[in-house]
């Protein structure tokens, strides 16, 4: 996915005619997927993608460090998603306590959550399990969802997420853990 971002930045700085196509080819699908997962609507995801890549194309000439490109893009995309959210309903941010997310009493002998290590991609794409996971992600509070989507689905590092969201790495880790526990709780309760 990342390819050589220093080459991409060089081409953007030089106003190379193919630079925007390259930016879209390298990051378009990722930012679009991020927008769909965060906003839940395809139309909103298109707006997020457009705003992010156009802003990137204007501003990236000033970016000095190619290794910061990914977190920079996700920061812009995250802001665009938050703007969409502000146009919708207001939801106060609250940190959940660990106790709210742990099983009451003892843990059962076996998890209801299937082990997908050996499941072929095709099977996962078709399955009701995918729907259950998507629902669980969609139902997360937005400030948890954004961290989980960046870390586990977009597979950014903790440091990149912290940079993109302006959070301390400890806060990213805490929100990621809460978000995973919420998804886990939902999946344990569902019958995929």
């Amino acid at each position, binding site marked *: 996915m990342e390819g050589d971002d220093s080459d991409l930045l060089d081409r953007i700085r030089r106003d190379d005619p193919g630079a925007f196509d390259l930016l879209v080819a390298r990051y378009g699908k*990722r930012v679009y997927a991020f927008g769909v997962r965060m906003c839940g609507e395809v139309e909103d995801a298109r707006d997020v*993608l457009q705003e992010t890549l156009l802003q990137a194309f204007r501003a990236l000439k000033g970016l000095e460090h190619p290794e910061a490109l990914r977190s920079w893009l996700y920061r812009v995309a995250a802001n665009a998603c938050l703007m969409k959210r502000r146009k919708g309903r207001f939801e106060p941010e609250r940190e959940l306590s*660990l106790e709210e997310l742990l099983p009451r009493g*003892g843990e059962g*002998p076996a*998890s209801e959550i299937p082990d997908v290590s050996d499941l072929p991609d095709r099977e996962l794409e078709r399955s009701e399990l*995918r729907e259950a996971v998507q629902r669980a992600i969609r139902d997360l509070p937005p400030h948890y969802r954004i961290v989980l989507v960046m870390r*586990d689905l977009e597979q950014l590092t903790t440091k990149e997420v912290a940079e993109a969201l302006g959070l301390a790495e400890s806060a990213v880790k805490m929100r990621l853990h809460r978000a995973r526990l919420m998804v886990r709780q939902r999946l344990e309760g569902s019958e995929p």
Partner: protein
Amino acid sequence: MSGGHAHGTGRCRELVERLSEYLDGELDPGMCAEVEEHLGGCPPCEAFLESLRRTVALLRRMPDPPMPEEVRRHLVSIVAARAASPEDEEENR
């Protein structure tokens, strides 16, 4: 399974709080060893870790929503139009 075991208390709670960092390889070696020692003697925490590991594996295998080709073409056409008249940049947003 011990019916009296509760992750929300004592040592189990402290370690359960760190399990994502453990799975992500973000714990320092000392803490990592402590977690592993606890897990070896606490089947409920071990089971909890396994369900969390499966959750993370599922999340990381989720297929991406595909970007329609028409969305890509639209983006590229907007940039071409703006390159032709950069002063109109703020319009069309």
